[in-house]
């Protein structure tokens, strides 16, 4: 965007002021995320740049906070780093455990949310779908309802999921879902579903329904039509919906606080504890790793979006 040739001097001045303002806002958006990266290599246990860091003295920088992610919570963190040390770290280090839990819970809740969500999005995008708007509003609502309300509701529900069966005279005691992996996975799937619905229906808006009819007229049954025609075309949208669902689970802390037990500590839960109790720059090391992780995800989603637009015949960018 250039200044038009008919602009007055005042408009030119305003135009450059505007560009500077935009630069400052971009700085506001990105600086807080970037600033923690060098700080995570701080040798000293401070959250600010030391003089040694500012003068680029190598002594000011170290990997000690990254190292502490592997040792925190181990039974013998100071031993020689042989096979048993690594086994100890794998089994006991709190951040390692949290990472394992986050991945297990994230993967399973993503699978659940994506399969159910894609199926529903296919139904919702059909013109014959009854009560479309109302059902859509219900399916999106886990994203809109304040998390604390969702988590509170889940807290009671998961402590005794069969309580409602009492209304129809069935036994009301069938164990707890709170404090189990299954409980956390179900909760995270619920929270991830709106993102899958939004992304997949957006992909289906540009989907040409006559392709399905063409396949059917050539003799394909609905199953074949779905797997050979529909699925390949909407796959980019499904994958980016799945990534959204995974990130939602990977970043979720409120529901975990309310329904997870000590066995299901995830990375955000561990960060929450770290920030509230024994604040150490190890948090910054985790944060840096998470920023790198989100850069990788963002790149994937962008590539998928472009691929999806190319497949649908939109102008390549």
């Amino acid at each position, binding site marked *: 965007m250039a200044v038009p040739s008919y602009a007055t001097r005042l408009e030119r001045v305003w135009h450059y002021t505007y560009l500077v303002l*935009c630069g400052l806002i*971009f700085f506001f958006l990105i600086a807080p995320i970037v600033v923690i990266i060098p700080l995570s290599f701080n040798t000293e246990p401070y959250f600010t740049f030391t003089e040694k860091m500012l003068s680029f003295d190598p002594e000011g920088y170290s990997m000690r906070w990254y190292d502490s992610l592997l040792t925190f919570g181990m039974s013998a963190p100071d031993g020689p780093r042989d096979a048993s040390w690594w086994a100890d770290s794998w089994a006991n280090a709190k951040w390692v455990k949290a990472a394992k839990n986050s991945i297990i819970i994230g993967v399973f809740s993503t699978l659940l949310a994506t399969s159910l969500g894609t199926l529903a999005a296919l139904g919702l995008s*059909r013109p014959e779908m009854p009560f479309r708007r109302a059902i859509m509003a219900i399916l999106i*609502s886990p994203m*809109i309802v*304040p998390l604390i309300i969702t988590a509170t509701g889940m807290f009671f529900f998961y402590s005794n999921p069969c309580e409602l069966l009492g209304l129809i005279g069935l036994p009301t005691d069938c164990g707890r879902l709170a404090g189990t992996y299954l409980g956390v996975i179900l909760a995270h799937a619920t929270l991830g579903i709106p*993102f899958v619905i939004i992304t997949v229906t957006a992909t289906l808006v540009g989907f040409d329904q006559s392709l399905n009819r063409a396949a059917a007229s050539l003799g394909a049954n609905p199953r074949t039509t779905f797997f050979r025609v529909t699925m390949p075309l909407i796959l980019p949208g499904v994958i980016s919906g799945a990534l959204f669902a995974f990130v939602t689970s990977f970043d979720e802390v409120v529901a975990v606080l309310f329904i997870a037990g000590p066995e299901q500590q995830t990375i955000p839960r561990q*960060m929450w504890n770290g920030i509230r109790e024994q604040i150490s720059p190890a948090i910054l090391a985790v944060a840096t790793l998470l920023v790198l992780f989100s850069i990788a995800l963002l790149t994937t989603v962008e590539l998928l979006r472009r691929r999806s637009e190319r497949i649908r015949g939109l102008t390549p960018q």
Partner: protein
Amino acid sequence: MAHASDPQAATSAAAAPDGPLTTADGKPLAWSLARSQARARRRAFFLVLPLLAFILITFVVPIGQMLQRSFYNDGFSANMPEISQWFAENPRGTEPNDAAWTALANDLLASAEERSIGVVGTRINYDVPGTRSLFTSTGRKVRRGIEPPYREALLEMDEDWADPQLWGAMRDASRPVTSNFYLAAVDRTRAEDGSIEQVEPRQRIYVMLFMRTFWLSALITFLTFALGFPIAHLLATLPMRKSNLLMILVLLPFWTSLLVRTTSWMVLLQQQGVINDILVWMGVIGGSQRLQMIYNQAGTIIAMTHILLPFMILPLYSVMRTINPSYVRAARSLGATSWTAFRRIYFPQTLPGLGAGALLVFILAVGYYITPALVGGASGQLISNLIAQHMTDTLNWSMAAALAALLLGSVLILYWLYDRLVGVDNLKLG
């Protein structure tokens, strides 16, 4: 499929031009069409059904069940049946007579034997703070033995039993269905004669907190608008290649963990943090006057504005992309100044995106919990934080449910508005 029956309909119509239209197999066309449409509707619905059932079971019903606690609490009435019965038979204002004291003593004894006296005490403690221990200690004493006259016996154990406020609270709790938690959520209480009055000024926290939540959310919405509008405009008017590059600067924060961004702001804003260091180094402030920018409202506002900014930029951007630049050029060629052209031509066309972004940011801000809890201090807490406090610290679950119901009500109104104005299916992410 409805379309598949069309050619057949055409042939049968040609064969029998006078009678009602039929399909090839002789069935009336309208009936056949309705049936195939019903089948298509059913098929579409069956695709959605598994997810709808899942969401209803894991989300809608649990929230409904939780909200039930806001007006239903049988902690007292279920464990103290005799005195509840006496309250039901005698109108408000009746002095407790011998029958009442006997019922109370019997219930206390039974409840202490059942070990439910703690639940009973907790229920009354919500209305009259400090009475939980009265119930538990009296429970211990009556189990050692209690003789009539019960009034004197109980008063000897603890003279607080004569307190009319306590009897009023027990009367309120004697019915499981109550509006007391909603009254408390708007800083009201029931006086001894049953009328509704405001609580003491220093206990009026809930209305203030609701007002603060809405006020801070409105302020944050405005700030995201003020910061997001120029960015969205720049991105929408730059050539695709450049704007895609800059878009990454918006999407990266959007994809970065909430806790990471909150942590960053804690690092930046603390008194020994980076921003204060820079200000001291530049000589703007002295070393001893470091600014308190965190653990107060300022912390909540700054961090939440940063976190919610992409939710304003993305809808604004997608609307601005579609605005035809020749309208502004036409206005300029007709003699409008750039300000007039912006105000009368460009800005009105951005309103759909602005409405979508503002509603979304406001809805999300009203329910925020994590960020205010970490950087808000005492003055930056929102209503969500109080709900959490009632859930985990004071364990007054009915109160948490009543506050949640009020918060949920306002969010649902806004959501309904969003659906009417923008449509939930137009929600876009990235």
